[in-house]
């Protein structure tokens, strides 16, 4: 998972970097940890598994999309995981 992505808002980058480092909502880590492990307080290894799973979903979505770019309207549930208030206005693209 060495892919890098760019998140933009109205054409202006708000994040550029490794997919694995994308800021995610803490509440998602907890919710998903409970779903997967029934664990309210996951250790770092379990947290990192959830991060990888999320990153993998983004990569898959990007790779099958036109121009390797995805919008909120098509991937609402993925965008909602990002730790930002303005997710509806964002787009994610795969950096070459």
């Amino acid at each position, binding site marked *: 998972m060495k892919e890098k992505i760019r998140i933009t808002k109205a054409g202006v980058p708000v994040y550029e970097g490794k997919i694995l480092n994308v800021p995610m909502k803490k509440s998602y880590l907890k919710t998903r940890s409970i779903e997967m492990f029934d664990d309210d307080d996951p*250790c*770092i*290894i379990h947290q990192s598994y959830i991060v990888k799973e999320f990153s*993998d979903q983004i990569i898959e979505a990007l790779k099958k999309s036109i121009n390797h770019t995805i919008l909120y309207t098509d991937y609402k549930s993925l965008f909602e995981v990002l730790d930002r208030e303005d997710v509806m206005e964002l787009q994610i693209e795969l950096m070459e």
Partner: protein
Amino acid sequence: MKVYLDNASTTNVSKEVYKAMKPYFLEDFGNPSSLHQEGIKTRKTINSSRKKIAKLLHCDSSELHFTSCGTESINWALKGLAFNNQIKGEIITTKIEHHATLHTCEFLESLGYIVHYLTVDNEGFIDLEQLKATINDNTLVVSVIMANNEIGTIQDMKEIAKICMDHSTYLHVDAVQVAGHIPLNLSELGADLVSFSGHKFHAPKGIGLLYIKKGTHLTNLLHGGQQENGMRPGTENVPYIVGLTKALECSIDDIGEYQNKLRTYTKYIKEQLDKANIDYVINGPNDEAKRLPGNLNISFKNVDGGSLVYYLNKAHIYVSTGSACDSKSIQPSHVIKAINVPKDYINATIRISVGNINTFEEIAYATKELIRILQEEQIEND
């Protein structure tokens, strides 16, 4: 296809073991301490099991004590010796022990024991000269993992036992990864205490064994009834004792064939990695005879180990990482650090542990997928 290549973590309960255990859940469930027909029956089963194991391991049945797991056996061996001892204040172990040993030693350090941690070379072998230089009249016990759980290094137990004997020091051997995988003769091993765990060789989780050589005195960890000669109280886990016995019998029956099969498979994996020009290092001994059969601990250059295991899991291939977590970060394990795996490789370490359940088709599929994932990761690194 689902490929389980994590047999050093745990194994399945074999059909033979399950079949042997089943009546003791459903029909023969009497308490072995009860003096009625049902209790007498299970008492006899425990005694017969102990005798069978003693014959397989070449010791006296009175020297064998059933426990709940390998960790309990190790804790009992080390704390039991320490609590019983009033004179000697030092312990020698190695940097590549299982946490059951390391954390028990840390606990004993907190009580005032001085613990020496021997270094190992890059294949995981103890420096015997360092052992000779460290051992002294104040050394209570030397505790060594006979075959390392991560990298499979099989230590020179004969030499270690001789050094301990020369200094009248107790020797505890963690044989958790050994039983059922390589031949073990307790009458020749020269150890005073040997720990075992059932689930590493197709018995269920929740059963272990501690060999205590005649004349070795331990303080109990638990206090209660008279089970296990009053040394390990608690109503005996009869079905699991039966399971452990059956598993050991089955494993010893075909140990030569088993070893050959596993070594063929690990050799195949290495050959395929070479053919695909994958940049990797093998952790542990290069000499197959000094490595646990089926163990293949590999580090790959400039790949993220977590991602590798994630993608393998996605392809239904189950292996272990060479990582450990503390509260804030994921680090290479203490074993991987101790053998000084090169910096460029250390973060992508996986342990493939092939077992008796695996077929050649599974190994071929897993190897192909591993190479595919590595090549994709490598392309991304370029």
